[in-house]
């Protein structure tokens, strides 16, 4: 495959995903995984999940998963194209809506839209989390790690990054004690 067409595919697929990302990048992870793993076959599920883990250790907005995918697929140019494709359409829309939101503030229509769209965002994020939990499946240990992290975040005030580090250590311990073999 020649480079320009890869960049074009990155730009097209990610710009499209950008505009449906109600609820942020977490809401469109199934679509992103679908494009990257199933349609374009740029990588397998295991690699996608490892890259996602890397971006969770990185500070800053979650949207950098797109940058890292771009990097893996087409180097620095891929990183730039993927990041811009994901950011530009949504940012332009936010800019325009931000400007007219003043005039709409307090209006019934705006309040209705917000009340209706928040559950859409929540539903998409929940589906995203479940989809990724499936993609992360590598044997009996991974669902336990998913559940433990959900519980840790809901019931403690610890920064979720500690859960990431603890989970990496647990996986290492289970693997090297012979309890757990990657499926």
């Amino acid at each position, binding site marked *: 495959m020649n480079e320009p067409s890869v960049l074009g595919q990155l730009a097209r697929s990610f710009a499209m995903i*950008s*505009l*449906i990302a109600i*609820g*942020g990048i*977490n809401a469109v992870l199934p679509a992103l995984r679908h494009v990257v793993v199933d349609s374009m076959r740029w990588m397998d599920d295991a690699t996608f999940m*490892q*890259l996602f*883990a890397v*971006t*969770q250790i990185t*500070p*800053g*907005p979650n949207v*950098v998963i797109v940058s*890292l995918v771009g990097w*893996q697929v087409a180097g620095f140019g891929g990183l730039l194209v993927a990041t811009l494709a994901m*950011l530009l359409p*949504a*940012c332009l*829309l*936010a800019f325009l809506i*931000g*400007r007219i*939101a*003043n005039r709409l503030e307090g209006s019934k229509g705006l309040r*209705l*839209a*917000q009340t*209706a769209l*928040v*559950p*859409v965002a*929540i*539903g*998409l*994020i*929940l*589906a995203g*989390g479940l*989809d990724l*939990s499936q993609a*992360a499946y*590598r044997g009996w240990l991974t669902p336990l790690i*998913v559940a*433990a*992290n*959900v519980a840790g975040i*809901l019931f403690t005030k610890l*920064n*979720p*990054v500690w*859960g*990431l580090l603890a*989970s*990496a*250590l*647990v*996986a290492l311990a289970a693997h090297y004690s012979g309890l757990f073999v*990657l499926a």
Partner: protein
Amino acid sequence: MINAPVRAISLFELFKGFATIGLLGFGGVAVMARHVIVEKYHWLTDKEYATILGMGQVLPGANVVNASVIIGDRFQGPKGSIVCVLGIMVLPILILLVFALLYDKFGQLPAVSVALTGAGAAAAGMVLATGLKMAIKVKLGVAGWLIIGLAVSGILILRLPLVYVVLALIPTAIVITAWLGKK
């Protein structure tokens, strides 16, 4: 009014503030964004920030990036938007590049692969927990749960492409919410 700036905030100040948010925002930038914007620099009151973040949440794209577009525009116009987005993205992407190079070099090592598999499952748990936390916080009514149910079953059970799910869900959600009234 959310559009009457109290005092002039320079482009440099905006860049510094949003760079801090990007650099220190581990495990999600929303918490750090509120801390910097509301508590540290007093650029916005708690209520103003909640309104802007609320808009960011229902617009497509990364929530905090959307909020930074709107906040930047408010204080410095379009230039401010660009500076804020650059501020929040540039340092995390540089750090990500370092991680990406490390991953390319060491990602194939069995120990690294096992550790990242554990961290990947944890990251899936983080996404799931984000959705659950939002669902608990918003106090959803019948309409809200119905919309969430439609989103999750459309994506995970029917396996419909996310674009169609979102395009169908937005009008459906508005109709359901208007019809069933209340939240």
